[in-house]
């Protein structure tokens, strides 16, 4: 059963001059951990704000828990949990006061749903008398998550929860999300980090206000049409130029310490020739087939569109 459904959602700003998202449709199943993956400015936050009833879509409809985001906004607001991209708790209130406040606003109490937040809260409990503004980035995220969970929401919206958080805290955060999923909470999370995509059950790749692809991370990787190679040499920037000018190479881009390339049909048949001609100009050339990642798929899809 679908828990969150978007049907042809379009939203513009500045009286139609700036397009934020266009004709977006997808659905998230009940109890699913769904990722919205895309760079800054892709329209992730706009979608979150429409789904949390904070913005009205120009056209299209969206349902959360079977409630319309425009008409039944009050119902949705009492059922969902939302954590905006920017830290948005009261900085001059302590950890405990923030949690207490949000629990009361949702007509609940800390005790009532303590089991849900316990694992997360114990990590920040030693600092419960500290003002939220004086917490570290990772701690702030944990507190914000606690506050978003304190009323046991059916759907949790997390807008870039790991942006600006260190690697260890990021990993911890995803562990927490997996445990929440076990509790049956539907989670919609957005992130600009492609490596986090594989941690979701299903993902939507989004770019410039349009969905590029929706599938499981594995499914998206399998859709990658060509063979992908990783190549490395002594002078990487010269190598990139040479590859780009070669007629045997279809696409080529820097990827970490390697360049990732795909070859033309002719190139696939004459890989040795390419390697030989490169070795004439470069020292220490290594060429090996590699498995595509979500980022490779994203780049591929982006170039295609």
């Amino acid at each position, binding site marked *: 059963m679908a828990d969150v459904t978007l049907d042809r959602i379009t939203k513009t700003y500045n009286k139609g001059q700036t397009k934020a998202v266009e004709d977006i449709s997808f659905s998230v199943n009940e109890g699913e951990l769904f990722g919205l993956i895309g760079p800054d400015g892709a329209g992730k936050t706009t979608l979150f*704000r429409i789904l*949390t*009833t*904070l*913005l*009205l879509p120009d056209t299209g409809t969206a349902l959360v828990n079977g409630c319309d985001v425009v008409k039944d*906004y*009050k119902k949705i*607001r*009492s059922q*969902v949990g*939302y*954590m*905006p991209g*920017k*830290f*948005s*708790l*009261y*900085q*001059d*209130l302590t950890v405990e*006061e923030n949690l*207490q*406040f*949000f629990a*009361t*606003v*949702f*007509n609940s109490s800390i005790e009532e749903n303590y089991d849900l937040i316990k694992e997360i809260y114990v990590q920040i409990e030693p600092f419960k008398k500290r003002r939220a503004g004086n917490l570290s980035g990772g701690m702030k995220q944990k507190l914000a998550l606690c*506050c*978003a969970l304190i009323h046991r929401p059916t759907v949790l919206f997390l807008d870039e929860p790991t942006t600006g958080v260190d690697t260890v805290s990021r990993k911890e955060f995803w562990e927490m999300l997996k445990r929440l999923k076990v509790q049956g909470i539907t989670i919609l999370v957005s992130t600009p980090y492609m490596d986090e995509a594989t941690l979701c059950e299903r993902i939507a790749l989004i770019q410039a206000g349009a969905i590029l692809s929706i599938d499981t991370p594995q499914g998206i990787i399998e859709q990658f049409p060509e063979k992908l190679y990783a190549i490395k040499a002594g002078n990487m920037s010269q190598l990139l130029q040479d590859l780009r000018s070669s007629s045997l190479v279809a696409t080529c881009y820097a990827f970490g310490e390697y360049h990732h390339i795909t070859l033309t049909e002719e190139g696939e048949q004459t890989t040795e020739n390419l390697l030989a001609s490169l070795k004439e100009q470069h020292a220490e050339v290594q060429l090996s087939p590699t498995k595509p990642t979500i980022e490779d798929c994203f780049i591929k899809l982006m170039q295609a569109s």
Partner: protein
Amino acid sequence: MKQFRAFVRKEFYHVFRDQKTLLLLFGLPIVQIILFGFALTNEIKDSKIVICDYAKDDASQQIIRKIEASNNFTIKKALMSHQQIEQAFKAGDVKLAIIFPNDFYDDLTHQNEAQIQIIADASDPNTATTLTNYATNIIKDYQASLINSQPTLQIRTETRMLYNPELKGTTNYVPGVMALVLLLVCVLMTSVSIVKEKEKGTMEVLLVSPFNPLLVIISKALPYLLLSLINLGIILLLSVYLLDLPVKGSLLLLVATSTLFIITALALGLLISNATATQQEAMIFSLMGMLLPTMMFTGFMFPLENMPIALQTVANIVPSKWYYIIVKSVMIKGLGFSAVWKEVLILLGMTVVLLGISIKKFNIRLA
């Protein structure tokens, strides 16, 4: 109800943890009372005065010429009785009378001492003292020029203040400062309160919750209502014990009407906060939009009666004008509710309208 308590508690935390603002909140009224009480004076130019010269001798003529040379006065010469002078005061034709008795010069040369009488209309005590000071200074100046030749000569000036012999200038400005301070503090503080949540992003989280906008608005105003009442207490204590200006009428009525005025101001601040997008915008709005009109149109700095009709009409929409009238009537004249019910009703109406617009303007979405 539990929700409402949580909102109110949160607002009190916000207010009491922002100590700089708190200092401003209580420092401002004290500084203003003291400033207006002791430091501010106005220079007065071209005041109409009358000179009754019964002496018409060398000395009186010389002094009159000196007075004429000063640009503080516009002079009318006439021989008036005390009754006539009082009538002229009442008609507002003149502010000051200087009277030279018969044989002024003779007294000065033969008895080494002469008298000049100065009568001032002290219903406006600031003007009265300033004008008498100007006049006595000119006379002293003349006396000083004589001393070189005849050091024993003395001119005594006898000053009479009509209507307000003790010269209580405070009668004018305490109600004015009360109106100014309460309005400023309430509007300024509440005007940033809601917009602050918009700017910091906390409103975004708050909106995605089952809260009632009315509760938020009321809980925002509540701490400032309490603080303003404390402020009112401080101002009243200062005026009674430091400035010797007692509350002549009913204290209860004064506090009740002040509470009403505070609520009016809070409603105005909330409206600004709802209508603006940033704290800075709200501040500029409340400072420019409130401070200036309050100073201009309350009536304690510039008398409203002297303004063109158009400006007098504008003054009617300034809440502090009505409050100023109420405080003057209750605190200084000692009048009861029957004398101020009209003003109270106007303030009440303003409050209802302002609160209504604020609630209507409260944005339940982000854009």
